[in-house]
């Protein structure tokens, strides 16, 4: 088995570098197609996310994957980035290291936010894309399937993914979903159009929200965000009216004073809501909603500080789950490598078994010729005896091959078997 990976990720490369190397779906397709043309005997998968761009190459049998320089050049050439600029930020891994790395990546142990669940889907999507183009093969198939299996094991056997750590995800999954049973019939009002607003929108849409209204002082920005998320832009003058109708409010403006004061809420919003439950997530600093608004019945107001404690608790809980997750990754890496090494011995094993079978058959034919009066039942008994004898003879060398494969390369033992039993190269 020969595996190689070249790429950059958040620990070694800045956002600026990752942005220059990032591939969208179409670009990844084009890059893999050109790869296949350049290296038809090598399998390849390209993983490109916000935090990493990694090109995995694999070769089986007599072939070797291209050298790390070729891989790096392929990445750089596609984006017309001088290779010298990239070189210091690129990471190269081979064989065992590649396996361990991808398993950690898929299990989200190498993510910027450890335990974030999106990476598993991204790894799967990258593999599916490569498979669709035809740049994968048996080795990458087994490799990526094992990575996905490892990630699922980590998710199922450790509490790593149960603890959310981003404020919007905690707010939606741990608080808003305890107020509302469903979000598809709720009105979501997003005040502000920044990054946090967008992240919150993503979680809300994932939770099923459909009626999205975006209010911003700059209506144009509201329109852009609304267009992106299939929502409705709201003019700033209609903010209070929408607050009356809203069920969920996410506020992320950069205002230096509260945009909704207690007085305004008491006067324009609260009386018309008739104590209908309202979830307000105030992500702005300084805050957009006066904190005393949260004292109103059925108004659940959360600021960043309110959720920071939960966030920290979850981070700590994830840290405690890390050793168990790393252990699973190590186990799966060892198993995968042992299996991969054992697979390299398959031709020798097959040859050995064939040789024994041929000898057995010759000897049986000779015996049956010498003793022609044997009944069918006796013949069968003798044949079974010979099969059992061969199986017992072969068992120790095959077990030794498996044991050696668990510890490292079985090449020496394979050579010894070839010489001992005079097997062909």
């Amino acid at each position, binding site marked *: 088995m020969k595996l190689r990976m070249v790429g950059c990720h958040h620990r070694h490369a800045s956002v600026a570098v990752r942005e220059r190397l990032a591939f969208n779906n179409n670009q990844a397709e084009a890059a893999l197609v050109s790869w296949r043309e350049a290296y038809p005997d090598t399998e390849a998968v390209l993983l490109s996310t916000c935090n990493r761009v990694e090109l995995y190459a694999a070769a089986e049998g007599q072939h070797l994957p291209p050298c790390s320089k070729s891989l790096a050049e392929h990445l750089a050439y596609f984006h017309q980035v001088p290779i010298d600029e990239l070189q210091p930020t690129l990471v190269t891994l081979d064989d065992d290291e590649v396996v361990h790395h991808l398993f950690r990546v898929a299990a989200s142990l190498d993510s910027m936010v450890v335990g974030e669940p999106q990476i598993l889907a991204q790894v799967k999507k990258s593999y599916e894309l490569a498979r669709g183009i035809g740049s994968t093969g048996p080795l990458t198939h087994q490799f990526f399937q094992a990575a996905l299996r490892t990630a699922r094991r980590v998710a199922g056997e450790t509490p790593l993914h149960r603890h959310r750590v981003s404020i919007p995800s905690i707010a939606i999954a741990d608080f808003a979903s305890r107020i509302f*049973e469903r979000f598809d019939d709720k009105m979501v009002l997003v005040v502000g159009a920044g990054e946090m607003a967008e992240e919150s929108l993503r979680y809300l849409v994932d939770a099923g929200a459909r009626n999205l209204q975006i209010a911003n002082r700059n209506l144009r920005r509201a329109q852009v965000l609304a267009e992106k998320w299939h929502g409705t832009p709201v003019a700033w003058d209609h903010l209070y009216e929408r607050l009356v109708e809203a069920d969920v409010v996410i506020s992320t403006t950069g205002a230096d004073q509260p945009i909704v004061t207690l007085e305004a809420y008491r006067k324009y919003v609260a009386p018309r809501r008739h104590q209908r439950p309202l979830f307000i997530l105030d992500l702005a600093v300084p805050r957009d909603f006066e904190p005393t608004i949260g004292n109103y019945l059925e108004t659940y107001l959360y600021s960043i500080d309110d959720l920071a*404690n939960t966030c920290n608790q979850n981070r700590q809980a994830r840290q405690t789950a890390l050793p168990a997750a790393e252990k699973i990754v190590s186990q799966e890496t060892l198993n995968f490598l042992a299996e991969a090494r054992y697979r390299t011995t398959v031709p020798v094993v097959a040859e050995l078994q064939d040789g024994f079978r041929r000898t057995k058959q010759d000897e049986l034919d000779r015996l049956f010729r010498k003793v022609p009066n044997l009944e069918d039942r006796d013949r069968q008994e003798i044949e079974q005896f010979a099969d059992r004898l061969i199986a017992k003879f072969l068992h120790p060398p095959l077990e030794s091959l498996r044991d050696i494969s668990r510890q490292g390369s079985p090449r020496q033992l394979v050579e010894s078997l070839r010489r001992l039993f005079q097997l062909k190269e």
Partner: protein
Amino acid sequence: MASGVNIFCFTACYFAAWMLELAGLTARYGWHRLVMLAFAGAGSAAQLWYLIDRARQTPAAPLATTFDWCLLAAWILAIVYLGLVFYSPGTSIGLFLLPLILLLIGAAQFASQVPLAARQASQFWGVVHGVTLLLGTVTVCLGFLSGSMYLIQSHRLRKAIPPLVSFRLPSLEWLDWVNSRALRWSALTMGAGLLSGVILTHMQHQTDPDYRLWTDPVVLSLAAMLVWLITAEIFRLVYPAARQGRKVAYLTLAAFVFLVFMLFSITVLDTVHGSKSHENEAALPRMGVSV
């Protein structure tokens, strides 16, 4: 009992399920829910068997005596519990619902086993009376349950307490839905129960000039509860702010207080509906038809 199933069997099962719910607050294992379900399922099956056995022995059961009536209400709540465990797995509903089931079984221990048939005059109105009050009791219990959980969930959300794997409650929206419907159905069924009871009493005591219906503590507590439920429902319909949320929760909690008093009247006080003290009247000749 001839079947070998007695009250202890299913009470112990429900109690074990409740203990497992309580233990789940500190630690939950993979088998936890399965064992809890097994106990609750075994309890409800045993209780059903017990009720069937009672019905075989007493043809008018399971509504013939206040004893059977309490057990039947407990069994319906046990079925509701099993349904909710499947509908909303992982929530701690059993923590609240199982004690109510045990409370009703406990109330049955103090209730009379003298057939109410001796006091009833019409099979039709007797059945209507028994069934509507049974459904009313169940809906008031469910209202109390959802109201309590609503207030706890709301309190935890206000204090920004993160959810725990060991203690999860349904969403406020779902609890509110159950709560408001429980209040409405309680008013309807309890109203029908009181009305049928009045008709029944009128038929039975029309020739008895000394009988005073409104001196019976059960009738009084039921009437008070009904007045409360109707007022609460009107309040809810007229005042928009009381249509959902905390206010409905408080209304259903108050309704439960009336129910507890009614159960106390049925089981402990010496009333026309029968208490332990009436058991010596079991030998009275049967009048009319059974319920």
